């Protein structure tokens, strides 16, 4: 019955979210508006993260590599 207790736990977590953000008190159309806005923001942030974060990490990696490992590249070019 792990699925059932997991579902109960998730439902309880959802209830806590409702209580903290006061969507427990809102009428259904207000809830719809609030959740749509929240989910839209979340999706936008995740999508932006998906697009930009790998590029940013590789640029950061190159920057630090350039900073610490520049001699290595130079020796390679001289040998060539």
């Amino acid at each position, binding site marked *: 019955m792990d699925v059932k207790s997991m579902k109960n736990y998730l439902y*309880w977590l959802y*209830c*806590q979210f*409702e*209580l*903290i*953000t*006061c*969507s*427990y*008190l*809102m*009428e259904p159309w*207000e809830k719809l508006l*609030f959740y749509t806005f929240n989910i839209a923001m979340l999706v936008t942030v995740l999508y932006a993260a998906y697009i930009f974060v790998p590029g940013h990490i590789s640029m950061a990696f190159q920057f630090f590599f350039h900073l610490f490992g520049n001699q290595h590249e130079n020796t390679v070019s001289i040998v060539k």
Partner: protein
Amino acid sequence: INHIVHNGGLYKRPFNEAFEETPMLVAVLTYVGYGVLTLFGYLRDFMRQWKIEKCQNATEREEQKDFVPLYQDFENFYNRNLYMRIRDSWNRPICSVPGAKVDMMERVSHDYNWTFTYTGRVIKDIINMGSYNYLGFAQNAGTCQEAADKVLSQYGAGVCSTRQEMGNLDKHEELEKLVARFLGVESAMAYGMGFATNSMNIPALVGKGCLILSDELNHASLVLGARLSGATIRIFKHNNMQSLEKLLKDAIVHGQPRTRRPWKKILILVEGIYSMEGSIVRLPEVIALKKKYKSYLYLDEAHSIGALGPSGRGVVEYFGLSPEDVDVMMGTFTKSFGAAGGYIGGKKELIDYLRTSSHSAVYATSLSPPVVEQIITSMKCIMGEDGTTVGKARVQQLAENTRYFRRRLKEMGFIIYGNEDSPVVPLMLYMPAKIGAFGREMLKRNIGVVVVGFPATPIVESRARFCLSAAHTKEMLDTALKEINEVGDLLQLKYSRHRLVPLLDRPFDETTYEETED
């Protein structure tokens, strides 16, 4: 953990009072919740203004739109957008005597609390944790009821006059002698309404050229009376004796603001038990200060008379002090005596003066005879003069209930404010959605509680207030505690980190006003 104050031997028993600090995360989330609700409030107001939504609250008429706006301040905004959403937790109609258990009429709302309809069903035997029924005298059967019945047939229900004209019954004289004997003062006077006792008698005692030092969290009746009197009002921090002493010193040294003349009278207004915090006044220290600086003390024992002290005589007996030290002892009959009205007790000259010059005595109708008989019977019961030990048993039962309930709630992990011995137990909720949720969930489980929100408390410190009663048996308390535990787990209300902030006794300096220390 609990600080024991040994202020030169003023306290004969430990004074355990604690106000745990709000956890940071909870405070932040409370503000988030209020922020979201405020945004939606603006949205709804916008929609109401542009007629997208039907406007169900009070607005000005079309012709008045160019006048000073009536409903634009924060209180009305809060009322329309936040209070309306959780309004079903208040003004619940009850249909039986509010004793330990009460019946309630069930009501539903189909348009989100703007209107209510009754389903016709009556919810029976709800455990009543909200009535100020400290000694359990809110009964519709028993000696008090029989005595009141007899008096009702003899005197009728109405008095139809003021005390000074034709409304002074022999019952009133009997009651006043009894009250004076109960409190241990020379003389007392009884009035028809507890609120009016404060608001109409403080103007008779002080006037312009006098100074009133009033506690931060005093009741609206005291504040109204102080304002009506025309005296200068200065506020000291709640139950903070260093703040009070500083104000007294400044008043004596500097006198009145412009003319530097000495104040005609300095009156200190305090309450016995503060009902929103559950704290008890530090009476020994207040009396010591009053004697040192030669000022007068007005003690409002609305909640503490009957509820504190080994024989129920109030906060003066609780601390083992003499009633002669308090100049004006005021109290109400509404809470522990199960009746209505208020009294003022003190020296004979003072009460004789109030009989002639108090607004209540001259203009207000006096107490109704059956109510007077209820007070007389219940007071005799508490004093033990009716020949039984019922009164003493009730006082002891209340003290036991208080200690048990508070200990159990603290062990469960809730944040409870106030003194260990006060029968008023505020449980902190903080978040606005939890106010409504707590009230509804407890009603589903057949327990009636009072939840308190913004205008009565600071906006982030909303709470649920339990009032214990001698009529609650241990089984009722156990049931209630079990349900509170369940609801606490369901709503995540167990914020306490068991770090009770110890009350500090260090000398007061300019930079520190708080009693807490990081």
